[in-house]
């Protein structure tokens, strides 16, 4: 244990939550540092949202504890916890104006000069001039920003975000990703962010926890989780899995076990091309070529068994060139340091 443990913004110990016979959270231990942008990534039903609700206090754990800033809050109500939530459906108060929504937290806590602070918060999410509107008169992106301002204005120790970008279209989502990250850097509040979108988790967060079936499979920086997946599940959920196992591993790598290589680490070469020092390679038949603008995906059925996907940037080639490769034999080459054993 580190001696600065008490400085953790969030600490979860042996957290469990059952709904009837279903165990949604099956033992989660987690530390989130102060000022960190932390993502909880996983498919739906993996328990990530339940963990968020346990931190917020909307659910009481079946077992385990929730600590905020070193203080045990497991038995406290949501309104006794120094956290605020941005809800997936925003949960704005429909009978209040935008300004009243943002003021709400300060109002119930009887904070002085709340009007100025609310206006400030609205300005920080670029919503000046929308104070008098009702939530129903706003677009999805604007509602999202009101929800953000309503939470941030309270300056909580931790801000919880439950798939906040899920309801936005792709273009807006990419804009908001950049904006959220900038806001987090500016205010310095700890963000705990739930998402099922691996790209979102990788681009925005300092660290990622990958959830599966109520447990955390791996915690690490985006690069660690992506480059060194700790399990077959992580390898598959975060990016394309590209596994080599069993007889193929024996034949290609000369060792036992299951190994993963990311598609962009593979080079598509001619079958007779010599393999350099420190490199591994496997020959196979190109069964599919998918042209995707900036890059092309090759699906290669290995002679040794199994299938790998290679991603090549279209530096010189055009769609005509790459399409012609379907049905041809190729050699996939990669550096040994890019292959990882998987538990």
């Amino acid at each position, binding site marked *: 244990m580190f001696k600065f443990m008490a400085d953790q913004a969030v600490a979860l110990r042996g957290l469990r939550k059952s709904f009837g016979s279903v165990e949604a959270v099956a033992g989660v231990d987690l530390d989130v540092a102060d000022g960190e942008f932390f993502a909880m990534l996983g498919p739906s039903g993996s328990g990530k949202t339940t963990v968020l609700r346990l931190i917020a206090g909307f659910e009481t754990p079946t077992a385990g504890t929730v600590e905020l800033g070193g203080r045990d809050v497991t038995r406290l109500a949501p309104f006794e916890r120094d956290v605020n939530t941005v809800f997936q459906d925003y949960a704005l*108060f429909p009978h209040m104006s935008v300004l009243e929504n943002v003021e709400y937290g300060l109002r119930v*806590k009887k904070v002085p000069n709340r009007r100025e602070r609310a206006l400030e918060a609205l300005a920080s999410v670029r919503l000046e001039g929308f104070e008098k509107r009702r939530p129903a008169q706003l677009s999805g992106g604007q509602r999202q920003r009101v929800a953000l301002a309503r939470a941030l204005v*309270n300056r909580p120790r931790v801000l919880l975000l439950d798939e906040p970008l899920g309801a936005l279209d792709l273009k807006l989502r990419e804009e908001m990703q950049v904006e959220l990250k900038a806001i987090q850097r500016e205010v310095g509040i700890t963000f705990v962010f739930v998402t099922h979108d691996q790209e979102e988790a990788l681009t925005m967060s300092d660290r990622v926890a990958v959830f599966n079936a109520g447990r955390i499979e791996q915690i690490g920086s985006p690069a660690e989780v992506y480059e060194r997946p700790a399990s077959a599940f992580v390898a598959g959920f975060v990016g394309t899995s590209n596994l080599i196992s069993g007889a193929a591993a024996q034949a290609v790598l000369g060792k036992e076990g299951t190994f993963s290589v990311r598609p962009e680490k593979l080079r598509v070469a001619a079958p007779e091309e010599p393999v350099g020092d420190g490199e591994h390679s496997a020959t196979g038949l190109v069964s599919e070529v998918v042209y995707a603008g900036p890059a092309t995906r090759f699906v290669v059925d290995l002679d040794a068994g199994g299938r790998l996907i290679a991603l090549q940037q279209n530096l010189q080639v055009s769609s005509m060139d790459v399409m012609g490769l379907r049905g041809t034999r190729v050699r996939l080459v990669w550096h040994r340091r890019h292959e990882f054993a998987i538990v």
Partner: protein
Amino acid sequence: MNLSRTARAALWTALGAGLAVIYLPLAVVVVNSFNADRTFGWPPPGLTLDWWGAAWRSTGMREALWTSVQAALGATAIALLLGTMAAFAVQRYAFFGRQTVSLLIVLPIALPGIVTGIALSNTFHSVLGVPLGLFTVIVGHATFCVVTVYNNVLARLRRLGVSIEEASADLGADTFTTFRLVTFPMMRSALLAGGLLSFALSFDEIIVTTFTAGAGVRTLPIWIFENLFRPNQAPVVNVVAAALIVLSVLPIWLAQRITGEASRY
């Protein structure tokens, strides 16, 4: 949908005929309340305000009106309280027999009034020994008034969901503050609509009232019924009927407008 010209004409005619059957007789009542002919000769030989004056001066009518207002207010108050509580329990909490409780609450509106009337009368009179009077009328009316409030509140709670209440708690509001600032304002129009409907239901009820009112208590519908066949009272009864049409349309219209406005949320 595009309809042929004949189909449209036929549908408009059907609509007109249907509405005519309902509303022309009501129009006749209103016109007759101004009919100068004491025996309601048709067409009216002339118009007069005499009957409206006579009705206003009738102490029996005014007492009955006051009794009806008291009964409707009492029943509505009970309905608002119990209906809201029941709706919250059924919508927000899971408990054994929830569906059955919901059915039992709604059932009284479907029960024939005469059955409710006899059952209540027997119970009050023979079993509990409660003397029949205004109180028993209010309780009798409340049995079915609760349903209108319950249904309105239930529908609203279902649409509301729990996330805005969670948001309120998340922002630091305790349970009571959340109810005061979020839940109640969102419920208000449903309560008003349910209350108005409940008032209207109670106000024109006669069957259950007959069995639960006892000898001394006379609500307006009962007064009308008693005076209907007294020839010299007939014009006054007509005036009361005409006034009642307006009085009962008003709450229904208001209730519809309120729920319509609220559905914008």
